[in-house]
């Protein structure tokens, strides 16, 4: 088997190199396997560990049934490969891939019959499905092929998955997945019964039994070698094989026998009936195969010694004659270009060898002595002599078989009156040799039946033999089966002769709703359901998604919260009465935000809520947080205002009043929910908070400002993360606003002196002499004259440096008193903002001539290097070390590494503010100037 997968990889290369002739070379692999199987014969077991956690091992076991299957799979495989060498032309598109898949399929099929592990069996089972999908779709440009391939894979995988669940149920119930062990000690119980039904679903779908049979005729879109192999000899037998494999253990478990017999018989009749309607020789054979598969499942599923013997022998003979018949059709198709039996005429003389083989194969199919088909059919009838109902249906099915076999021979070879003999080029040796071999095998299976009997009987011996069970032979004397055989042949022949009448009856009886149409309806319905469901859930509207989420929030924690009523605990409304005032203010501002029609006003109101929150921090005794929050609010407001210049001043009113109300209800409900949750959570507290340990830790870390120590030392790890968040957010803004333009540093000299100019309002000319000799801010010279404000320029010039000093002070004093890198960075950022507002983008570039991202990048580098240094020195990332130097002038320097960390934060924050100004301020200015619109200055 391994050889097959290796060959599967090699095959495409070989075919590419050698053309179609490579198939002959490849055929050596399955031929060798056949030889090996025949020689070893006895039972062998090989186990390799794979996934012990799932009790899934690569367990292989060779016994009588496996041996027979290997001979069928590998033997027919070898012959079909030889046949392929003649069937295809070297230049056919996709042939190398085809060769690879074909051989891989053969390998998977061998694995399937050799596997001694339920799940491993499923592995190969699905592999054969997938490869058959690819093989059926060989003519990929034809819609029919693609559709048929899809139908085949969907139907068989449906069964396969059901089977997988069934196998798991059985395996878990048995405590082992090893097939041989399960057969030896079959588990029982309701789970096992359900599992068995599921397994049967898989087996029936794979072997194309009703109601899954329709995929097989569709699969005839595949090239004929594929049909001969997959859809006659090998893959479709997988279901039969599985039933044969498990019957010895489970045939007596209640629904097993009923299901196999009922569905098998129904399939046999319907398949035969439909076969008689076909005009395409291949479809005729396909429905014949469906019929025979039903028959086989009955035989191996019923679970008696005689039936098992007969069933497995029928499996052999069927493989031989059906593969041969398909190959004959392939030769005809290849030679004449048609498979329509109404068009074919007089091939008897055009292809005598083919004709002889075809006739023998069909005769075996019909059960004519002394061929294999006769022997097996005799045995089949003999096995059911004590069950007249089943026997009667079998006989009926066999009559149909005879009829369609005759139709096949007549259709393919007969001289039809009023038809010119069809022109046909003769098949090469490569095409006819495999057919001849299979035909000889068919004859041998008849004449030499007793030779094969002992091997087949080894499988049948899993059951106790009955008192009058007989072994396989051509001649048993004048028995009931012989009489039935004769009856079948006569009735079948009569049915064929009366084909005109039969087809009229069929035309009347043809149902409007067959399985295939049902499948199409189901799939169509599925597609429509998918469309509907998706249209319902996938609205493409953000507000709808948000409502979904809020709804989930209300439903889940909300209902849990209500279930917990009444809540215990006490309410303390405020610590300081001022809190209530501030809280009220925040609520009013929030409500006002929602109701604004002007964007700027909304931003201002939102700003009030932020300031209110900052005040809350202060009231709670956290001036540090308050300071940071105030500064953040200010910077955010600036950013907002800068952006608003590019937006319409008013909101676009699109919401319907009802939706607005709904949203209001949602908002109020979520607000109540959060308040309720907070109430419950706070009142559930019993343990002291972790923050109780902070003051002590802060002192240990050498400072008194808990917030700052927390940020740069205790939770430096979080701060590093948040710094990167800030940094990347700014980088994203830069990226979005600049898009493909690489940011360049604006230089004052390049300016036209028209920045923020008002189009339409003529810039008043300053008399040359009136120009001051030196301006306060160099960049402001680039501004359009009417936009300049001396007062503002002076203020900016005056305040800029003190603000920077202040920021540095905040930075270094952070450890002990309010401040720290974050607040300090914001102060510095505000200083830069002032320079920008007073002097425009050229002034900004002048104030800090750094490229975008550079400052933050440096900051993040400093932060991470600090962390890594700690890791290097003490093995703990961000471990603080205090550096003490004695410098000549300054004296003792006490410098904890956390300050370096804080410098990193400082740099990141400055860089972020700088980039916001650059992008939302400077670049937007530039874009506006280019578009010639008026700029609304702050």
């Amino acid at each position, binding site marked *: 088997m391994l050889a097959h997968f290796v060959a599967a990889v090699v095959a495409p290369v070989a075919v590419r190199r050698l053309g179609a002739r490579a198939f002959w070379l490849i055929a050596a692999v399955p031929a060798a396997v056949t030889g090996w199987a025949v020689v070893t014969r006895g039972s062998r077991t090989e186990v390799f560990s794979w996934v012990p956690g799932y009790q899934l091992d690569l367990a292989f076991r060779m016994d009588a049934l496996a041996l027979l299957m290997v001979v069928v799979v590998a033997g027919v495989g070898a012959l079909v490969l030889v046949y392929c060498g003649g069937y295809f032309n070297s230049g056919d598109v996709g042939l190398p891939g085809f060769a690879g898949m074909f051989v891989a399929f053969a390998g998977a099929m061998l694995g399937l019959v050799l596997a001694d592990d339920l799940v491993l069996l499923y592995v190969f089972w699905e592999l054969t499905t997938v490869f058959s999908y690819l093989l059926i779709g060989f003519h990929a440009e034809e819609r029919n092929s693609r559709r048929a391939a899809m139908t085949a894979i969907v139907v068989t995988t*449906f069964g396969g998955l059901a089977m997988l669940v069934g196998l798991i149920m059985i395996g878990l119930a048995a405590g082992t997945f090893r097939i041989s062990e399960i057969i030896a000690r079959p588990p029982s119980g309701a789970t096992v019964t359900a599992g068995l039904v599921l397994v049967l679903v898989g087996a029936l779908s794979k072997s194309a039994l009703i109601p899954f049979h329709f995929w097989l005729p569709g699969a005839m879109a595949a090239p004929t070698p594929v049909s001969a192999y997959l859809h006659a000899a090998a893959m479709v037998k997988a279901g039969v094989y599985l039933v044969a494999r498990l019957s010895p253990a489970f045939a007596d478990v209640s629904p097993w026998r009923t299901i196999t017999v009922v569905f098998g018989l129904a399939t046999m009749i319907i398949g035969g009936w439909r076969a008689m309607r076909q005009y395409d020789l291949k479809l005729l054979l396909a429905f014949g195969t469906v019929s025979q598969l039903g028959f086989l499942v009955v035989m191996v599923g019923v679970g008696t010694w005689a039936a098992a013997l007969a069933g497995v022998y029928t499996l052999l003979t069927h493989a031989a004659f059906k593969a041969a018949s398909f190959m004959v059709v392939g030769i005809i198709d290849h030679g004449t270009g048609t498979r329509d039996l109404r068009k074919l005429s007089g091939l008897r003389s055009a292809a005598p060898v083919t004709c002889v083989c075809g006739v023998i194969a069909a005769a075996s199919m019909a059960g004519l002595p002394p061929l294999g088909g006769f022997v097996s059919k005799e045995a089949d009838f003999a096995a059911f002599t004590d069950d007249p109902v089943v026997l009667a249906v079998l006989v009926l099915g066999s009559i149909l078989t005879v009829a369609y076999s005759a139709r096949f021979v007549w259709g393919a070879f007969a001289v039809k009156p009023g038809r010119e003999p069809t022109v046909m080029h003769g098949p090469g040796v490569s095409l006819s040799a495999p057919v001849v071999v299979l035909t000889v095998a068919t004859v041998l299976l008849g004449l030499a039946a007793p030779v094969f009997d002992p091997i087949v009987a080894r499988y049948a011996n899993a059951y106790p033999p009955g008192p009058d069970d007989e072994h396989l032979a051509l001649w048993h004397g004048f028995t009931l089966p012989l009489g039935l055989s004769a009856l079948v042949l006569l009735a079948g022949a009569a049915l064929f002769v009366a084909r005109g009448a039969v087809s009229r009856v069929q035309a009347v009886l043809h149902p409007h709703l067959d399985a295939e149409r049902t499948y199409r309806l189901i799939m169509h319905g599925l597609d429509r359901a998918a469309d509907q469901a998706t249209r319902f859930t996938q609205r493409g509207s953000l507000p709808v998604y948000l409502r979904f989420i809020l709804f989930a929030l209300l439903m889940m924690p909300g209902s849990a919260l209500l279930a*917990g009523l009444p809540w215990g605990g006490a309410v303390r409304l405020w610590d300081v009465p001022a809190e209530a005032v501030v809280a009220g203010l925040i609520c009013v501002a929030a409500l006002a935000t929602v109701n604004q029609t002007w964007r700027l006003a909304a931003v201002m109101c939102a700003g009030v809520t932020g300031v209110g929150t900052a005040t809350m921090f202060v009231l709670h005794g956290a001036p540090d947080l308050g300071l940071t929050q105030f500064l953040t609010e200010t910077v955010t407001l600036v950013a907002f205002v800068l952006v608003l210049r590019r937006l319409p001043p008013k909101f676009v009113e699109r919401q319907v009043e009802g939706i607005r109300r709904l949203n209001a209800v949602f908002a109020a409900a979520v607000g109540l929910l959060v308040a309720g949750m907070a109430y419950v959570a706070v009142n559930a507290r019993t343990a002291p908070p*972790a923050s109780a340990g902070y003051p002590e830790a802060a002192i240990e870390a050498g400072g008194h400002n808990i917030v700052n120590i927390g940020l740069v030392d205790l939770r430096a790890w979080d701060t590093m993360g948040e710094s990167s968040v800030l940094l990347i957010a700014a980088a994203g803004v830069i990226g979005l606003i600049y898009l493909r333009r690489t940011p360049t540093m604006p230089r004052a000299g390049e300016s036209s002196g028209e920045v923020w100019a008002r189009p339409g309002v003529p810039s008043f000319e300053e008399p040359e002499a009136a120009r001051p000799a030196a301006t306060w801010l160099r960049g402001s010279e680039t501004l359009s004259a009417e936009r300049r404000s001396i007062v503002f320029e002076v203020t900016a010039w005056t305040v800029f440096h003190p603000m920077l000093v202040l920021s540095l002070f905040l930075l270094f004093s952070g450890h002990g008193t309010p401040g720290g890198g974050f607040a300090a960075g914001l102060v510095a950022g505000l200083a830069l903002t002032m320079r920008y507002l007073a002097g425009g983008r050229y002034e900004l570039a002048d104030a800090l001539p750094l490229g975008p991202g550079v400052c933050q990048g440096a900051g993040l580098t400093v932060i991470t290097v600090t962390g890594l240094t700690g890791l290097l020195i003490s093995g703990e990332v961000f471990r603080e070390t205090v550096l003490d130097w004695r410098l000549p002038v300054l004296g003792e320097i006490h410098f904890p590494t956390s300050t370096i960390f804080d410098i990193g934060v400082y740099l990141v924050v400055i860089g972020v503010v700088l980039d916001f100004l650059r992008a939302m301020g400077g670049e937007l200015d530039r874009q506006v100037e280019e578009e010639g619109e008026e700029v609304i200055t702050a």
Partner: protein
Amino acid sequence: MNNVLVPLPVVLPLLAAGVRLALGPRITRVQRGISVAVLLSIVVIAAVLVYQTDRYGPQTMDPGGWPAPIGVMLVVDRLSALILLVSSVIVLAVIVYAIGQGAADNDEVTPLAIFHPAYLILVAGVADTFMAGDLFNLYVGFEILLTASYVLITIGGTGARVRAGMTYIVVSLLSSVVFLLAIGLCYAATGTLTMAQLAVRLDALPDDVRLVLQLALLVGFGIKAAVFPLSAWLPDSYPTTPAPITALFAGLLTKVGVYAMIRTQTLLFPGSNLTTLLLVAAALTMLVGILGAVAQTDIKRLLSFTLVSHIGFMVFGIGLASRAGLAGAIFYVAHHITVQTTLFLVTGLVERRGGSTSIERLGGLARLSPLLAVLFFIPAMNLAGIPPLSGFLGKLGLLRAGVEAGTPLAYTLVGVSVLTSLLTLYAVCWVWNRAFWGDRSKVPEPGQIIRTREGLGGTAIVAAAYPGSMAGTTLALVGFATAFTVVAGPLVTYTDRAAAELLERTPYVTAVLP
């Protein structure tokens, strides 16, 4: 015991990102080298951590030398280590692919050199999430990766991307708010955010309060993980970004949510009584997701829906809350990260070769580019759970767990799982039928201009042969996914031990609070 390797997967990419930004857009080749080297080293570190955690138990690091609960504690246990390893391999592969694409596209996806910093920061965020031992740090990790993802999703700023980015960002912000709210509530109720300590203290809370906290966390993570009904944002936002970014998001970001669910459900809320809720959500996620996939004609959108659908498999495992279920979920996470990323990368190749990802405009690719066909087919079958690929093994674990649980609901989930598998197969075969088989004339010759892109820049989209590094990386990932099958034995036992460790809780708790 502090392990010096633990913080590196976070610190190294941040350092690289910082250096990269500080140096500006100069010497790109060196900088690309740095990115690749950093990510490669993380793969090695993660591999060592897998070994160490499996051998010696959870590995920890307390930054700054402050033990929990004062400081932030980083913890890597078997679950974290495995997911970290798989994601670092993915991240490495995607960056190589993106560099290949960028080199071929004249940096179409890398304007302003923010691609690399954003990418590295995202990687750091993901790593931080996986090793956060502190609920707030988990939030910080989320924020890092989310903010970086905001940048990446809107990169290039085309109209479609900004629209998609809007949905993505607003929904993510809401999820962050919910998460932050839940964190606040947890602290209010217990006074700690160190997860190990929370594990102890939450046990002492009244049941209803615990349930409120648990559900609030679940909603937050459910949005991130795209669990129905919180999933609708995903298929609307992922498909518009360039292939490597979609691939990265699809592989990692939802799994971060799943990881957080696994961590909090097992560590903080053991013996959960939410099994029914989770299982129902899992079933709906699977079904709604896969029905969405069936209704699509664009490969990227289709794959986004399968992504949602297969999140259901993981939630199924979490919902079962048994050792087998969790082990199955963990295996499935590792599998799904790999396969979903690979498929999106392949789609990138398809887009490049065929000029489109719409099935209507593709055909006959199997003949035109057999390599591409193989690259698509194997992971597609893997996604559909065809044996012996990892998707099958993951599914097998979950089905076994479901059958073992044996309740009617568990059996329903088993049924829904196989139905979802079948429909997944149907969906990917549909793509195969239309795009890889079928009419070859729809696909333009290499070099032919297909159409001009709307919006800025007006770059023409040209069908082109893809550069070797893109195909090579994809091939390597297909190989990586296939390797799961080969090492399935040890991997399954590893996930089983990981699940056992999660359920036991004590190894984690004692590693943090000795």
